């Protein structure tokens, strides 16, 4: 049965169902329970934005608060995964990767290869990504390109509640290390979500809108901005096909290429900074693989090459807008 759930609740439900199904699943992070050692309520926080709220009541000590030592506890999650557990570790904001990246990119990501296949590291690292929260330069980054660059990691970034649940369950069952990126500005956004457990396979993009004039490839919160842009463009008779990548590594280039073969035009939309971005990555692959199909230059719509500014007035300019996307589509369509 499906009900309407927010992405936040869908993530909570995915964790709940997987913890119930598999005793090897444990969850850890800073204040993901909350109140440990404190005199008041246990389960006081459920994470800084309440995503894990209520799970402690059901699963008790399988949810563990941690000291503020990301290298130690994310590394411990990775070590436990190498010993057969399926830990889900929360790195509150992806911006904090700088204090624990070694355990992620030199350890988890490389174990299997370095050890000649003799290791599996089924760890999930959940982290909030993205701008729009007025959280400024150190709490608003995407950083998806950094993780996508690293061989050995899988990178997931859902755009809605339904996908978030299915992709998180898949991430937990997956036998490779997964960076699960949750756009904090989507937590409140709702879709229908089945109450039973389900998975969405990695490397399968979702065509969220069909259209014959221009392909838009994107992911995360930019899916919604792209939909907005497409609605505007449709008024002028320009029909966009919008592809939500859902997973950035592996990436479903087949669906992208198929669409571009059809439309001949591509706009890559990425909330990340422009250099070496997902937008650039998709653009480069398409222009190599579908060169002859392209009728116009691929356009990239990304954040500028700047940190994320604090002031709402600036942050709203920083985040790619439906208008910028629409004008990129117009540019390519009119080429």
């Amino acid at each position: 049965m499906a009900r309407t759930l927010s992405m936040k609740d869908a993530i909570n439900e995915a964790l709940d169902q997987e913890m119930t199904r598999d005793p090897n699943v444990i969850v850890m992070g800073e204040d993901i329970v909350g109140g440990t050692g404190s005199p008041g309520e246990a389960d006081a926080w459920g994470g800084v934005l309440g995503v894990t709220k209520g799970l402690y009541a059901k699963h008790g000590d399988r949810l563990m608060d941690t000291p503020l030592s990301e290298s130690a506890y994310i590394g411990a999650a990775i070590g436990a995964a190498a010993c057969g557990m399926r830990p889900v570790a929360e790195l509150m904001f992806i911006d904090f990767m700088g204090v624990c990246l070694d355990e992620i990119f030199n350890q988890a990501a490389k174990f299997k290869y370095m050890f000649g296949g003799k290791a599996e590291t089924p760890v999930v690292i959940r982290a909030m990504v993205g701008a729009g929260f007025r959280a400024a330069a150190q709490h608003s980054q995407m950083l998806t390109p950094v993780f996508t660059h690293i061989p050995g990691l899988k990178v997931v970034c859902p755009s809605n509640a339904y996908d978030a649940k299915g992709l998180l369950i898949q991430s937990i069952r997956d036998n490779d290390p997964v960076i699960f990126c949750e756009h904090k500005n989507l937590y409140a956004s709702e879709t229908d979500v089945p109450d039973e457990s389900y998975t969405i396979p990695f490397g399968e993009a979702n065509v969220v809108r069909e259209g014959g004039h221009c392909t838009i490839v994107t992911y995360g919160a930019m899916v919604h901005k792209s939909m907005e842009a497409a609605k505007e463009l449709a008024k002028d008779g320009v029909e966009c096909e919008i592809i939500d990548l859902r997973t950035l590594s592996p990436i479903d280039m087949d669906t992208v290429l198929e669409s571009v073969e059809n439309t001949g035009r591509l706009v890559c939309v990425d909330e990340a900074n422009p250099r070496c971005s997902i937008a650039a990555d998709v653009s480069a692959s398409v222009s190599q693989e579908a060169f002859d199909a392209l009728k116009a230059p691929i356009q990239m719509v990304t954040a500028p090459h700047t940190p994320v500014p604090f002031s709402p007035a600036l942050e709203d300019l920083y985040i790619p807008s439906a208008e910028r996307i629409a004008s990129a589509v117009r540019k390519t369509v009119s080429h």
Partner: protein
Amino acid sequence: MSDNPFPLSRDDLLTAYRTMRTIREFEERLHTDFARGDIPGFVHLYAGEEASAVGIMAHLNDNDRIASTHRGHGHCIAKGVDVKAMMGEIYGKSTGSCRGKGGSMHIADIDKGMMGANGILGAGAPLACGAGLAAKYRGDGGVGISFVGDGASNQGMFLESLNLAAVWNLPVIFVVENNGYAESTSVDWAVACDSYVDRAAGFGLPGVTVDGTDFFAVYEAAGEIISRAREGGGPSMLECKMHRLFGHFEGDAQTYRAEGEVENLRANRDCLTQFADRVTEAGVITRAELNAIDGEVAKLIEQAVTEAIAAPLPTQTDLTTDVYVSY
């Protein structure tokens, strides 16, 4: 007026009180304005911890550098950052200390020796070591101060810095502002040592713990270790035990605290009240003088908010400036 039994002159006492009151008023006002929805982003209030910032900063000049935390307003004000510019910043205006680009967690004023509030736990400690290194290299007698919370004291960057400062014998003070909680988590659970004096000793540092709500205790302990650092005696750790009077950040329901905890703290452990009682009971300063300061400060903060609200927003051109000196 009776003899002054304090290690500060009457003027300095009045200044200290004014600074503490300014911080308190600034924070109380932000609390109200945030609740009204006027202020964007994450805001962490320093109210209740003023004696630490002010007791330490009383020993510093612009040539000394501090590296602050996410809970940085108090450090900024005590280090001399302009209060109106801070308010403008927190309101996201182009008149702000950072022209609206930084916000509450990133206020800095290098000229004042304020190297930045910081959204990353523990990140200030290496920066303070760098300040200490620069001062030592130049022989200018400056010191670097790293503020860190009890929770952040478990961060690798902070712990590494303790060792580095000791090995390089840097003029650096590590101030642990132990307010009992890291977000909702208790220090008693999260920090595995009997006392910060032990943790300091594990890195060859002298450590001292003081009641961080007692301005005079902070002032004296800080004075001693800061002079030692200035004279080449190397780094130390100072633990200030204190309390925050608001939630971790604005919006925190604080259900992890004990029933009546905050009320009790406000009644019995408020550093401002304690300071006022001490100086008036000693007969060095009158209630009337303090009340006058309170009035001036209230006016200043009111003005700061009015000006912040009236100030212009940054615009498109500001978006891409100041990423690099040149590019």
